[in-house]
């Protein structure tokens, strides 16, 4: 199963919480520079799967490697190579924009000079120059999300994990957010994104449909639509998710 080209690969990866099987024997691999979408209803096991890959949760069984490092034993090396944006907003609301950037740059050990350069670049890209001294709590949600993403890739990780990064923001902001994701992919960063917005699925290179903790489909959006004779990803999702027994949490 080992694939030297893959930056993420999982083989029969499972997570049980007591009797409950949150993720059931999932296997897949992601290539460098790919935008890999992880789709599923609420409670399908997307977040659990992602947390196992980041080293936040210990898998119950199966194996997985991130950038060639084992998720059981080499979590410290994995941490050096990944960025992470959690489902819940992951910046400090009581720090200013600049302070947040400085803090996260600091804990990843960026040198002062590089940090300053990166900060300017980031503020410029996001057009947040005037807001550098604003508390993050005062920013609109869409800006916060864009800022959180930019901070997650500040240390130029090989892989970024995004857990429902666009939850609750308007379509225009979501579109802008995906522009940032494309820009990152262009730099060679691999993106692993979970979402339940089907229009976003179209933006991914390949997508993986998760239903009740199991992979029901894995292919490019175009191929999936062809296979299921569907017009949109929405239709593909309804077709697959009909079999779900779990209720959303």
């Amino acid at each position, binding site marked *: 199963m080992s694939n030297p080209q893959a930056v993420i690969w999982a083989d029969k990866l499972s997570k049980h919480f007591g009797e409950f099987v949150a993720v059931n024997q999932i296997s897949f691999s992601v290539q460098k520079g790919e935008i890999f979408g992880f789709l599923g209803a609420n409670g399908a096991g997307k977040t659990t799967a992602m947390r196992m890959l*980041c*080293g936040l949760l210990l898998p119950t069984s199966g194996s997985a490697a991130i950038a060639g490092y084992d998720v059981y034993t080499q979590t410290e090396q994995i941490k050096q190579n990944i960025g992470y944006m959690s489902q819940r907003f*992951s910046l*400090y609301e*009581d720090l200013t924009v600049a302070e947040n950037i400085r803090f*996260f740059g600091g804990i990843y050990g960026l040198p002062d000079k590089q940090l300053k350069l990166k900060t300017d670049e980031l503020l410029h890209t996001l057009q947040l120059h005037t807001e550098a001294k604003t*508390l993050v709590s005062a920013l609109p949600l869409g800006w916060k999300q864009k800022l959180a993403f930019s901070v997650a890739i500040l240390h130029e990780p090989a892989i970024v994990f995004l857990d429902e990064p666009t939850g609750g923001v308007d379509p225009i902001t979501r579109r802008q957010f995906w522009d940032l994701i494309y820009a990152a992919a262009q730099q060679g960063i691999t993106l692993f994104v979970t979402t339940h917005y089907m229009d976003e699925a179209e933006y991914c290179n390949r997508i993986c449909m998760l239903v009740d903790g199991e992979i029901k489909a894995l292919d490019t959006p175009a191929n999936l639509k062809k296979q299921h004779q569907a017009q949109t990803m929405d239709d593909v999702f309804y077709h697959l998710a009909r079999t779900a027994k779990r209720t959303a949490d």
Partner: protein
Amino acid sequence: MKRFFAFVRKEFHHVFRDPKTMLLLFGVPVAQILLFGFALTNEIKNAHIIITDNAQDIASKQIAAKLAANTNFITHQKQLNPQQIEETFRQGKVKLVVIFPPNFNHDLLHLQKAQVQIIADASDPNTANTLTTYATAIIMDYQKQLWQNTNLPLSIHTDMRMIYNPELKGITNFVPGVMALVLMLICVLMTSVSIVREKELGTMEVLLVSPFNAVLVVISKAVPYFFLSLVNLTVILLLSVLVMGMPVAGSWVLLYAISALFILTALSLGLLISNVTNSQQTAMLISLMGMLLPTLIFTGFMFPIENMPLPLQVMSNIFPSKWYYIIVKNVMIKGLGFTAIWKETLILLTATLLLMTISIAKFKTRLA
């Protein structure tokens, strides 16, 4: 190290941006010290007193027997010279010394006037006051009996001396107590909320995914509160010196060094609570109910520990504030040096290392 400072800077921002935190940090100590202006009186039982009987005659022995029969006292007969008396008090166990001069009975019968000296350790003014009142009452009672038996106006004069705190200022008692209480409250409460808040907000996930060392996450949380608590300590001491007119008898350096140690003890405890709980409310409840109340009761400044049933006396030993309170009284009021407090210091040091080790060990580097 640079990463560590990035973290510490962020923690300072958290503290200074939260008005509630600032109010609790600086409002509570000031309010406490100003409100505790009155002292509490309590009956004291089984206080250890020493009787130095230089007369060894009938009258002195009868009085000594009456003192020994009283349930408030446990008496010990010992011939002490003034220097030995001082040393006895420093050890802290003996609260009162009653001294009969030579020829006590002779003076009483022939001069119709005799003297008894009572020396009390007034670093705890409530206890000193109550004990001397008890002792004087017993001696006066004896004098009344003599009048009835002899029909002579024989008088026994009691000469009282309060050492360490001659003016019996109640504040001497409560300043060390408030110091222990406030430092405990602030440090435990503040830090107990700090880690668990990141768990609640979800930022902990991001920290766990970063290569930042878990041990440093724990330690950097404690840094701002450590410095702010030292500022707090200074405020309390300045208030007690300038407003309450209570001097610091011993070494300021020693007082600060020991207080810094105690602050670390309290911070470690707060971090431990924060590490094992999952919500800010639980953490707060544990710190308030589990720590504040016992600290109030078992430190010894409100309720004398000597009066408690034995199991509770034993229990009081596990509260670090008790040891800190003893140290502060010794240094601040009695003006004693390190040799007098090394045992208590060692206890605090051990407690700190233990709590710190446990809380670092308990820190979860994964979510579940």
